[in-house]
């Protein structure tokens, strides 16, 4: 059974049909790409998958569980974590605390235990710190742990966002244009990181990207979206050679 199965997903904003009859099937462990011209509805689909928008019709199933129209928090608990096209970090918190917010629902103690500094607080905080540092080390930002997130350079902010998403221990990771604003070297490094995350965290990843080098380099399957409709779907090399895709997206 597929990890994520989306059937006939659609959403209308007033009279505008932003996404129509969108279907996708992602197997566990896959690296899946979602591409399409600007305004095709890619981020709208992410927003529906994570409960920011409620779909007008269609069904989303994650690991056999129907999550259609649920709240963002419930969907995160069910196992979907995401990053954002325009980076959304907790900029006045330290890098370490950003990841620890991600760990919020996995390591618990009550507010009273926190205020009174009871043993549960010390124990859990210690484990949280260790876990968060582990994640930061994976992304090579452990040295900046005590800095404010706002002071990180752009590339590292992107990485921190992925680290924070992984801290919630998701089954499926959604990356919204992870390479946006990166130079070719940073993009290459990011490709390594994404592969590393998939292999070492046993993660399934769905990503939106415009950088064709990244897409053809790491995605195993692709869905191409145009005007809210699926234009092509299948293995990366096949899809990228599809004449219609070339016409609509890559240019004739």
């Amino acid at each position, binding site marked *: 059974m597929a990890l994520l199965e989306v059937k006939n997903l659609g959403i209308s904003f007033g009279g505008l049909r932003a996404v129509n009859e969108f279907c996708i099937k992602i197997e566990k462990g896959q690296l899946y790409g979602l591409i399409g011209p600007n305004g095709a509805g890619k981020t709208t689909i992410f927003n529906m998958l994570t409960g920011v928008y409620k779909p007008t019709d269609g069904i989303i199933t994650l690991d056999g569980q129907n999550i259609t129209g649920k709240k963002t928090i419930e969907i995160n608990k069910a196992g979907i974590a995401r990053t954002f096209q325009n980076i959304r970090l907790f900029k006045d918190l330290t890098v370490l605390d950003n990841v620890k*917010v991600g760990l919020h629902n996995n390591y*618990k103690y009550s507010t009273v235990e926190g205020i009174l500094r009871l043993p549960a607080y010390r124990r859990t905080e210690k484990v949280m710190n260790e876990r968060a540092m582990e994640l930061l080390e994976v992304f090579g930002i452990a040295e900046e742990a005590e800095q404010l997130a706002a002071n990180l350079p752009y590339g590292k902010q992107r990485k921190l966002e992925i680290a*924070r998403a992984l801290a919630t221990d998701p089954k499926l990771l959604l990356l919204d244009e992870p390479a946006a604003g990166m130079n070719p070297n940073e993009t290459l490094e990011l490709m390594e990181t994404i592969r590393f995350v998939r292999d070492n965290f046993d993660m399934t990843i769905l990503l939106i990207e415009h950088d064709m080098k990244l897409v053809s380099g790491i995605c195993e399957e692709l869905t191409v979206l145009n005007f809210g409709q699926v234009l092509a779907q299948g293995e990366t090399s096949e899809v990228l050679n599809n004449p219609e895709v070339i016409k609509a997206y890559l240019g004739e």
Partner: protein
Amino acid sequence: MKFMKNMNKTTRQNMITYAMVILAYIIFQTLSVTGNLSSLMQGLLVPLCTYSILAVSLNLTVGVLGELSLGHAGFMCIGAFSSAFFTACTKDIITNDLLRFMIAFLIAAVCAGIFGILIGIPVLRLQGDYLAIVTLAFGEIIKNIINAMYVGLDENGFHFSLKDSMSLNMTENGRIIIKGAQGITGTARQSNFTIGIILLLLTLVIVLNLMNSRSGRAIMSIRDNRIAAESVGIDITKYKIMAFAISASLAGLAGCLYAHNLSSLTALPKNFGYNMSIMILVYVVLGGMANMRGSVIAAVVLTMIPELLREIGEYRMLIYAVIMIVMMIFNWSPKVKTWREAHSLKDVFHKRNVKEAK
């Protein structure tokens, strides 16, 4: 010093804050006991604690949660009247003064907290500045209701009226506790500097420990980016209401301290009105968002200045305003900040240490 180095940065900062409060207590208490403190300053000690607690508690809403509240004096008012009411009712029943005072604090915190939750539930679900509008209205409404409220006690129980004391229909032995615009009179003046400082420390411990815990991080993540906080599974409404309720109940504590420092408690615009709420907000802004030590310092300085400037008479408020502007620039202007960092005392000490090490 080794002990200081082993703590992490935030813990060390918090310890400095506590130490400053304790040091201030020792200094003022010594001056007061040895008779070197003017009666004016003597009378200011408890209000200083009250305003510091109010500033720290409001900073939890404004600086940590990132929501604007313009009715903090309203929660203080609830705490003041509920605790003074309790004290007046149980004057003859609970004879142990300290015990009764402790229960009064508890009641003040709980009542103010309940109102915080009641206001928070509908308003904090919304995005935007609705909280500011609603709390502004709340503060005024509470003050006006209490001004018009008559409550009496006789052997048949409590009597309540919003008209006048006659309509309470009490028996001859009855006693009016809240007398409309005259408020509650005859409250025992139990507040003193020591209790005030203990409460301030308690408030600081609660707020600072909260900020460095799981819930505090959740609250601050909502302030920094609501959408991202939701995406990592933070329950926005729950943590917003939690922060606001804690902030309100701490204001209630301050209210209790305030009420038991006066023999007659009335709800005037001066003490519980809009101006008071704004004043507390000024302490918070001047002290810095989410900077609790700053809030305490701002509250102390801004409460003392007008009193110390009394001698120059009519120019008092003018100088006060100038000092406020200068403080604001000195604290927060980027250029002054760079200058301060370049000439900081810390550097002087540090350089000397380096030299000695060589």
